[in-house]
């Protein structure tokens, strides 16, 4: 068959599926509107996907370290960090550095706290990070009472601006993804992360500092979530308590749709970008078609199942 060469290329790169799905959906939307708004749809999807990608990368590293590892504190972390960032910046351009430093510091503390619960108190990650999220959400409520402090104009411009239709934010996050992709596949830390995910015992016997690597990974995830909270607050003109809500499931969904194994040990960074674009464009397409909320949710579920099946179909094809 003529298709076979293409098929084998796709089989070899699981992340191509998510980009393919995103492209098909974009074309379907454009076809529906008769070409109107093609560029701005793409520009918007790059902006919103960037946030998914930031948290997705952090979550992916956590998931990579093996079964049971997951960070559920991301939504509360985003809400808290957004509030901290906006409060520290206080709308003044001269204080942007303080907001950034403060938020990154908060992220590191949150990551340390998460791992302390997991390691010192021996609580399973799913429970540890979930209970941490209650603490963080309460702190966000108490701390962020005077919410909606406007971000400094310069920071707002960075978060919402674009060059030839390509958002600054998307450019930065693509760079971040390239760096993290390199870290995952080329650096010692990344390779140990993958090794631990495939077999923690074997990695330990081979001389890997399993606990240290996991510690670093939870801190990484928390810092990325904090960064996302800060940028999101800048993007939407201020922090709000509910702004992290959708990132719990989305952070896991982009990782899985992107072709990373939920069981850990097999991961890739580019797929997260494809999956984030795919999710955003999917909802936009169904909105554009005028589908009602019920139909939209059903179709979203079905299409995600189809894409995940396609991704895992590659694995069975490889083992067969």
């Amino acid at each position, binding site marked *: 068959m003529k298709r076979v060469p293409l098929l084998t290329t796709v089989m070899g790169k699981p992340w191509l599926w998510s980009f393919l799905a995103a492209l098909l959906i974009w074309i379907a*939307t454009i076809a*529906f*509107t008769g070409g*109107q*708004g*093609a*560029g*701005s*749809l793409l520009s*918007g*999807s790059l*902006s*919103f996907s960037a946030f998914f990608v930031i948290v997705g990368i952090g979550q992916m590293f956590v998931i990579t370290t093996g079964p049971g590892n997951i960070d559920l504190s991301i939504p509360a972390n985003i809400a808290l960090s957004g509030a901290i960032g906006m409060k520290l910046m206080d709308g003044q351009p001269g204080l942007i550095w303080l907001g950034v430093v403060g938020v990154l510091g908060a992220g590191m503390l949150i990551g340390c706290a998460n791992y302390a619960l997991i390691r010192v108190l021996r609580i399973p990650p799913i429970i540890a990070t979930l209970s941490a999220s*209650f603490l963080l*959400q309460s702190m966000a*409520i108490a701390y*962020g*009472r*005077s*919410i*909606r*402090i406007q971000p400094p104009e310069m920071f707002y411009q960075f978060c*919402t601006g674009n060059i030839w239709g390509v958002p600054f934010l998307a450019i930065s996050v693509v760079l971040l993804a390239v760096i993290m992709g390199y870290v995952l596949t080329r650096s010692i830390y990344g390779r140990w992360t993958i090794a631990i995910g495939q077999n923690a015992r074997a990695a330990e016997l081979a001389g890997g500092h399993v606990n240290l690597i996991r510690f670093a990974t939870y801190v990484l995830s928390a810092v990325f979530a904090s960064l996302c909270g800060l940028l*999101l607050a800048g993007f*939407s*003109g*201020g922090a*709000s*308590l*509910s*702004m992290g*809500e*959708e990132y719990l499931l989305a952070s896991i969904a982009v990782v899985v749709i992107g072709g990373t194994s939920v069981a850990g040990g097999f991961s890739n960074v580019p797929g997260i970008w494809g999956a984030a674009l795919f999710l*955003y464009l999917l*909802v*936009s397409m169904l*909105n*554009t078609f*005028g589908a009602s*909320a*019920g139909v*939209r*949710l059903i179709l979203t579920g079905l299409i995600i199942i189809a894409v995940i099946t396609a991704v895992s179909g590659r694995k069975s094809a490889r083992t067969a």
Partner: protein
Amino acid sequence: MKIRPLRCLFLSSALLLSPFMQVQADTADKTIALSNNYAGNSWRQNMLGSWKQTTDDAVKKGVIASADAFTTGENQATEQAAQIQNLILQGYSAIVINAASPTALNGAVKQACDAGIIVVSFDGIVTEPCAYRISMDFKQSGLDQMDYLAKRFPNGANILEIRGLAGVSVDEQIHSGIVAGAQKYPNLKIVGSVNGNWSQTAAQKAVAGILPSLPNIDALVTQGDDGYGAAQAFMSAGRPTPTIIFGNREEELSWWKKQKDANGYESFSISSAPSISSLAFWVAQQLLDGKQMPHDLLSPAVSVTQDSLEPALKGLEKGGIVSQVYSVDDVATLTSPSAH
């Protein structure tokens, strides 16, 4: 018929005295609990704040012995049902509920009624007949938005609708008001509809996603906590800002004020007041006092117009929502839906 003079005397004196007896007298030793399912947005924060303000004052004045607020962690009906069962065991005289589900708590609510506890639900109401329900006329608030737009755009307009959380009854009700308005004014055309989930960031995202495919938009109808996010989406897409109906949030009104001062921007704002919790408290207190009331009550919506914008903003704290403080006298003015 045998007349008993002593009994007659007691009865008539009681009837004569009753109007002069203070509300405090009969409920001073009673306790009321608030069972709340969610606290994670500004409306709920304001709602809890209003409850605290009213009940602290009532406790200090000896109207009631205590009025504690309890919020569940996970916004789940099962968790709230267990919480209500706990409150029954703790022996509260009345339970005021903002419910996670209109039906899933009915079992626990029935248990409370059977234990002689008065149950008042508000905002998120329960359908169990023994409970009382205080809700805003959400359908009317949807219709009010369309009425305003019909006056603003006599020659017709393209309208984008931002809905709330899919599957929640409040969203259905406001939407039905919007639909009724679109039928009433055929030249107001609803050209798109998205779910903003009552969250500025979710609304911003949903609007940004559908905007490229839409023609020129003249106006937005909303459900509250989504107008500011929608405005952000229009700005970053570089499209002219439409007339956005707001939901009484401070950031929305501040933004409106800024636009009004800069270019004469005109709009309208309507939402339910979070102080409905204090109204629910007074209803519960009055019921404990033995007052008879219909089981379904309507609370009025609060709206802000072009002229009342400045007074509404004055004294409104950052992150707050336009509200009004209810007193015990407001209970008497409540209407039931049938009388409406």
